[in-house]
């Protein structure tokens, strides 16, 4: 197991390098630069800005220099937040996104998995239809619709929560719910699908035939296999959740990392794009690694190989 993990971490290096390279050249190909604005910048001013931020060097030199800066974690200055580096931005906003993402993930798993398991074990009864219809509704209502509706009901009409911000504990409720409910719906449906697959398979039947209680058959034996699609889904989902969601952060004015991904691209802040992409990529790989480890753990046959 340890060698497996070490190997995967070793693979991360070329992957990050590839991501860095692709992203670096992609953003240079994109039209518009960090300094363009409604009022055009004078030629000689632009020249000076390009010089200062290193855009006048040959592309390959810039490529190497920025790469080195990322390796040494001595990040280049930003053009969209003057006086800060991506390290400041990430260290300030990632804890926010992480907290929000974990709340949302907790809500999603807490609601989604039991709903899916119950629905699958009572297939085609109202215990199946009700949670699945709710889940389907959750999937059909995008976060940009659910968020404002929740804010309207709980923040404005009932005054139970705040409508936006990220200061008091109350501020966590609506964004976590909006994000969590959406993922809960996904997880519920994936769980149900996976469970149905397993419940009709031989070894659960065997377990049932051997007299295992229904609870044991469903939860202990079936869940282990049935949850597989959920786990595959969780990897990218987790990385996506903890790095923040642009929509939810915008609606609820959460100072998280998700907005920086989009705004960095909108503002063509090249160093911020590169740094956040590399950060996100590392998380993705970490999450996928965790998922793969989990898959091995849940699948005894893979483990003993």
């Amino acid at each position, binding site marked *: 197991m340890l060698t497996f993990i070490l190997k995967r971490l070793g693979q991360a290096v070329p992957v990050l390098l590839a991501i860095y390279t692709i992203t670096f050249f992609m953003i240079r190909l994109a039209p518009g630069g960090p300094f363009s604005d409604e009022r055009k910048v004078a030629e000689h001013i632009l020249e000076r800005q390009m010089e200062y931020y290193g855009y006048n060097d040959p592309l390959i030199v810039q490529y190497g220099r920025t790469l080195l800066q990322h390796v040494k974690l001595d990040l280049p200055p930003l053009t969209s937040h003057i006086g800060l580096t991506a390290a400041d931005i990430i260290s300030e906003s990632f804890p926010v996104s992480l907290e929000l993402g974990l709340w949302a993930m907790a809500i999603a798993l807490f609601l989604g998995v039991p709903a899916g398991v119950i629905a699958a074990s009572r297939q085609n009864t109202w215990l199946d239809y009700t949670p699945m219809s709710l889940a389907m509704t959750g999937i059909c209502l995008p976060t940009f619709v659910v968020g404002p509706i929740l804010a309207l009901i709980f923040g404005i009409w009932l005054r139970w929560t705040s409508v936006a911000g990220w200061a008091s504990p109350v501020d966590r409720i609506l964004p976590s719910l909006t994000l969590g409910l959406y993922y809960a719906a996904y997880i519920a449906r994936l769980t149900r*699908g996976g469970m149905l697959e397993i419940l009709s398979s031989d070894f659960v039947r065997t377990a049932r035939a051997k007299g295992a209680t229904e609870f044991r058959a469903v939860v202990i034996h079936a869940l282990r296999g049935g949850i597989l699609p959920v786990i*595959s889904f969780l990897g990218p989902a987790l990385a996506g959740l903890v790095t923040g969601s642009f929509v939810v952060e915008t609606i609820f004015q959460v100072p998280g990392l998700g907005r920086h991904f989009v705004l960095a691209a909108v503002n063509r802040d090249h160093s911020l794009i590169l740094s956040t992409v590399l950060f996100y990529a590392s998380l993705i790989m970490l999450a996928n690694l965790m998922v793969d480890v989990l898959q091995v753990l849940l699948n005894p046959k893979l483990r003993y190989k």
Partner: protein
Amino acid sequence: MHLSPKIKTEPEAPRSLWTDSFRRLLDNRLALFGLGFFAFISIMCYLGPFAYRLSPDSQVLALESTLPFTKAQLVEVRYDSEKATPDEVTTLVDFGEVYALDPEADTAALSRDGTLTLKGIKFDAVERFHLLGTDSKGRDILARIMRGGRISLGVAFLATLTALLIGVNYGLVSGYFGGRLDVLMMRFVDILYAIPFLIFVILLMILFDGFRYKILLVFIAIGAVEWLTMARIVRGQVLHLKEQEFISAARATGVKTFSILSKHLAPNLLGPVVVYSTLLIPAVMLLESTLSFLGLGMGANMASWGTMIKDGQESMRSAPWELIAPSIFFSATLFAMNFLGDGLRDALDVKSAKD
């Protein structure tokens, strides 16, 4: 070494399996209902405009948002009385405020005679019935839903299919062969996950500037992102399945790799694939609206369901039906697809077929 019973039956009667499945599908009322509703929506979107003849683009600014079941009293304004199309369409009320010399008398005269000429400008009274009301520019919502449905259903179908084809095959190969190939393929997926989507879309737009079939770019953009998770799910499933007895058995008896993949593994993947596809469809439809906001895809005035929902959300508090109407069509269609998907899954389920 014993063979799983399903392996034995398979080669004999694949045709009967399909017939079986079809019969089971017909038995599933919910699935049939889904199929029926889906057919109804498709027919409505494609043939509806022939019966409901209001144009989705024709604006009546003065009308603004109106409630469903509104009969609007409109006035066509022609500065040149010979002209076929009106220069402006406005409401009777607005006519009284803007054009009429004597608001009360002129409005009364116009609604009585149906036509009126003032200072060389010709006015004709017309009536329009808006079944689902109008949006903030006085455009008919139902007409827009019908046209938007064509875009959304088309995108949903094609983009999901693209994501499905790539994702399933990729995951199948990666999971089944394992080893180095698996590592390589999965790390490639990791790379694609991390590429900034916004920049990718902007580049696509620039590279294909002036390209006539921009809608194809939408498929590329959506396909490029949405197959990744599908591939991961399929791979996870294959890793689990390939250790099961019936696969090892097939391998041991020398069944060709291709037929193991297509005949033994693929059918067992149906469940998660169908479930994930039904989850993919709404995501794809909404992603399309994001892309069109960025300028990729349809012209800006061609509203898909996703765009309509997005616009409706903006006016959620002033004209909620602008959000509710497209959302209902959107959700209902997805519910129908979902029932159909579940029905298909159950019908094609090899294991329950043995019961």
